[in-house]
């Protein structure tokens, strides 16, 4: 018998649905950091991202019985988090900009990294100017390192449609970063 910590997602989901609610913490522990970076880059704010990840896990718990394939919990959870991030950006579009800039500005400023830090800061701010759809495909491909095929599977869309979104994002970023490239 496998140790609890190595239990498959489906096994944990079924246990939680059967009443062993404390085991939900295992799923949270397992996936909270995997999507922390996605949420942070999407929202431009660590605080907002932490709230979004927490809220998504609570919502997922509430709707756990609707998770049709418990073995694919993580993909199902991602869509809940994604919706939460999109809603948050619609609600609070401007407030993240300053924190995104500050977070980078606080990084190591030793000689030789200043230019990189400046460019990174500018890119962070420019990303917030993209539409959520554009930002998402950029984050998933260039931050999370997923291929177009993997992103298409995750978002249930087509590769050509993702590429179109991404190429518009490139143009917008170029426009925003004219002085930095």
């Amino acid at each position, binding site marked *: 018998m496998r140790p609890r910590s190595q239990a498959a997602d489906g096994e944990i989901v079924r246990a939680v649905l059967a009443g062993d*609610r*404390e085991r*939900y*913490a295992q799923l*949270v*522990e397992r996936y*909270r*950091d995997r999507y*922390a*970076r996605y949420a*942070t*880059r999407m929202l431009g704010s*660590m605080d907002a*991202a*932490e709230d979004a*990840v*927490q809220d998504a*896990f*609570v919502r997922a*718990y509430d709707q756990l019985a609707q998770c049709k394939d418990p073995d694919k919990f993580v993909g199902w959870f991602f869509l809940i988090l994604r919706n939460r991030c999109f809603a948050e950006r619609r609600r609070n579009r401007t407030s993240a900009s300053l924190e995104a800039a500050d977070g*980078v500005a606080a990084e190591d400023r030793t000689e030789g990294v200043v230019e*990189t830090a400046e*460019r*990174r800061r*500018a*890119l*962070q701010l420019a990303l917030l100017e993209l539409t959520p759809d554009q930002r998402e495909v950029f984050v998933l*491909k*260039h*931050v999370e*390192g997923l291929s*177009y095929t993997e992103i298409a599977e995750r978002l249930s869309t087509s590769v050509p449609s993702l*590429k179109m979104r*991404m*190429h518009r994002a*490139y*143009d917008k*970023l*170029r*426009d925003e*970063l*004219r002085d*930095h*490239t």
Partner: protein
Amino acid sequence: MSGHDFHPLIKQLLDGDITLADLPAELHAEGEAALRLLAAVDRTDVSMPAVTWRVMAALERRRRRFLPWLLAPALAIAAALVIWLRPGTPPPSAALVTVRFVLVAPEARQVSLAGTFNQWDPQATPLVRAGTTGVWTATLTLPAGQHQYAFVVDGARWVPDPGAPAVDDGFGRRNSVLTL
């Protein structure tokens, strides 16, 4: 395509479909600038260790409204006892009243009280375990009037007092009410 759009080949370069060497010479400089843009992507890992307990605490708080039916038997027999220092003598409006809170929770590692009297600080008022029976107690001196409170078991589980009336706090939680 506006004057600021990338050349389609540059977009392929950014997508990783081609390399700089595949670009015609006149696009090299633009290609290098585009790759510098991607080099600025922040891929630093982000960790949110607090999310686990925050999620579980949020679930627990919401569950509290169902606790009379869901609590483990060890918790279900909890009770709060009120001891009046001067029985039979109604306290004046500014009087202080000593109250003894009791919770039976044999499996708990720690129990505390959070309420209006300690700014809902779950660490401010620990209960003391009495012997090995699983009975936890705290004796407080409180001003006369109405107080709302809950027990906090093991720092995370908010438990209303089954022996006291409860009210909704407006945020989906139930608080026990003590009127002195």
